[in-house]
């Protein structure tokens, strides 16, 4: 593998989307778990555990989308116009979820809060499901014509394998969110979240095992690179170990380390995904020669170079103050009058 600008941008877009999955993953997960409790106070604590950080987390998706547009405009254009209805649904889900966080606690009425609680939760679940299904379609392959345009339909995107990836994503984010919740809460809610987290871990492990089997049986090209380069099996191994480490740390009461293991699970899953699709960005099925890859879909080398300079200036600064902000808001959530 030759490290040219196109490859660097493949990695950078991957890093942005992985950042999104790790960060927004836990607040989407908190959203999915939101309706598990009936108590207003507990719902508020869960909401405020992600309160200061959720919109910063969502910026990773926005920037990832922008980077995809800039670095691989053909992929952006084909995927976004091809997945039109799915993306419109995703937008609706993201809108409802975002405004629900802001609106919910502004009024005391029960129906009001219930309405936005449901929006928040359903929006979070649907967003996770759709994002996962989109990745599943990229893995499985979608029909692309000779002009590089999507040649399938909305319903063709909802086939079993992509949906399985979608459900696995929901499970993964629920587990991730539950562990984050355990870390940020105390008292009764903390114990409840601990119970849900165990359930989510089991749900995720079942999904992950099913998905792994399905991939090996039905989507052999998604394991091709690891098959050809056995040393890459270390990534798969790291992924197993990260998953296995979650209940272990949990058992010992190391919530923070359980959360880090959950982050590592997401990172290694994304790495496996990226390793196996590389150098394609949209794999074309049934005509692999129409696939959009990091060369035929990319911007000019000059643009990729300029963008790399922008990323080298911007990303370290972003990471620095993001870390500071997480540091300021570290520790257990306490409700005060500025809270949601």
């Amino acid at each position: 593998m030759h490290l040219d600008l196109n490859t660097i941008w493949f990695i950078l877009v991957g890093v942005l989307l992985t950042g999104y999955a790790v960060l927004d993953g836990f607040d989407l997960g908190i959203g999915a778990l939101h309706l598990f409790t009936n108590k207003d106070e507990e719902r508020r604590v869960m909401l405020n555990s992600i309160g200061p950080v959720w919109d910063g987390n969502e910026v990773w998706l926005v920037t990832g989308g922008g980077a995809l547009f800039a670095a691989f405009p053909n992929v952006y254009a084909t995927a976004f116009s091809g997945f039109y209805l799915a993306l419109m649904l995703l937008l609706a889900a993201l809108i409802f979820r975002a405004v629900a966080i802001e609106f919910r606690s502004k009024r005391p009425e029960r129906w009001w809060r219930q309405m936005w609680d449901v929006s928040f939760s359903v929006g979070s679940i649907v967003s996770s499901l759709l994002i996962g299904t989109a990745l599943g379609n990229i893995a499985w392959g979608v029909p692309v014509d000779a002009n590089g345009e999507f040649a399938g339909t909305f319903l063709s995107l909802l086939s079993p394998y992509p949906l399985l990836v979608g459900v696995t994503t929901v499970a993964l984010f629920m587990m991730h969110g539950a562990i984050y919740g355990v870390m940020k809460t105390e008292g009764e809610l903390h114990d409840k979240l601990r119970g849900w987290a165990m359930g989510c871990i089991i749900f995720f492990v079942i999904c992950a095992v099913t998905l792994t089997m399905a991939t090996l049986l039905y989507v052999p090209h998604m394991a091709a690179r690891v098959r050809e380069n056995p040393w890459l099996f270390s990534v798969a191994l790291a992924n197993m170990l990260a998953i296995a480490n979650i209940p272990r740390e949990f058992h010992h009461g190391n919530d923070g380390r359980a959360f880090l293991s959950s982050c590592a699970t997401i990172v290694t899953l994304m790495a496996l995904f990226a390793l196996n699709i590389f150098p394609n960005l949209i794999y074309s099925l049934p005509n692999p020669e129409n696939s959009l890859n990091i060369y035929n879909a990319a911007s000019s080398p000059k643009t990729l170079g300029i963008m790399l300079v922008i990323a080298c200036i911007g990303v370290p600064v972003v990471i620095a103050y993001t870390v500071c902000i997480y540091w300021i808001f570290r520790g257990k959530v306490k409700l005060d009058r500025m809270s949601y």
Partner: protein
Amino acid sequence: MDVLTLSRIQFGATVAFHYIYPPLSIGLGIMLVLMEGAWLRTGNTLYHQMARFWTKVFALTFAIGVATGIVMEFEFGTNWATYSRFVGDVFGSALAAEGIFAFFLESGFLAVLLFGWDKVGRKLHFFSTCMVALGAHFSAVWIVVANSWMQTPAGYHIVGEGMHARAEITDFWQLVFNPSMLDRLFHTICGAWCTGAFLVVSVSAWYLLKGKHLEFARKSLKVGLTMALVSTLLQTVTGHKSAQGLEKNQPAKLAAFEGLYETTSNAPLVLVGWPDEKNEKVIGLFAPGMLSFLTHNDFHTPVIGLNEFKPEDRPPVTPSFLFFHAMVGIGFTLIAVASLGFLYFRKGTLHERRWLLWILVFSVLGPQLANQLGWFAAEVGRQPWIVYGLMRTPAGLSAVVKANVVLTSLIMFTFIYFLLFAVFIYLLNDKIQHGPDDADLIPSGKLALPTKN
């Protein structure tokens, strides 16, 4: 309706709705910096109370701005895929830069601005407020860069032919500082400042009318009216510069704004009027020679008319003309309103003039309308091009998206946005009726500690 019309309606409607909020974030951002700055400078806790109250309003507008902003980023790809392929190399860079330099800054420090009151010291909190405002301004910079490139493309060359032609960057700084970018940026930002200032003015005038929160209202008016006057006056300068740039860069747009068909020296400026497209003239009141003077600083220099352009290259005249003139009209009215308000406020007799207070209450609509109309004029005036001179609007559509699909999403957005707007107005009204919190007169947490010098 065909897919072109539907896609244009959808993009226009979603961007118009979105654009209610970013100017508020930018404008209120600046107001928050002024208020919190005044608190740190004077130690008057009334300013602290103001900053806290307006922070809550800011949070509300910000959330909707973020939620509706993601839609915009997606829509280039969903509805305008061919355009996206054509401009991705250039336009995508600006969007990505916006994400990295603006959105992260804004949303990151927003956490401290909203939730950090009791957690961090005064200086760090003020710094965060400044960063949020700066981030909001940066996002205006990059989005205006991107849009201005569509108006006056520069720093690129076209590679490939037919279906595979696309614009590629040749000079990044030429692309960023394309001919119309700076003028349009100042005009946009100034418009946003007006929006924030008049919201503060409007709410404060309401409190004076109702005899509530008087001290709070007076202090807010002082900051709000000053900012309103400064930014409306500045807006005439930036507007003038923008129009002069138009004459150079997009003469067809300027001619459509003024309904000027024949190239004429001593070109008149339309003060009030209605374009008559059939007879190719404008009926109304004119200031003779003023258009020539304003664009060239000379009464005799000719201004290019629409007849110099083939009919298929002309923007639609009536809407361009009306949007533009309505914007200008509102702009000058706002100057008058801000001046009167400021004058009587300085005299100390503003609270006696209830008619003026009522005008101030409704003045909040002025900048919002002018912002919308200004963008309508800018975008309709660019037609029939999606990228001026390079790509026509119908050519930018997605190849695979059908009309019924766009109709579905258009209906969805209409429903969601009406709901959002209703809830926004309801909650905003709720906040205003509730008024500032007296507990905010006493800073709490680490903010209560005196600043160390």
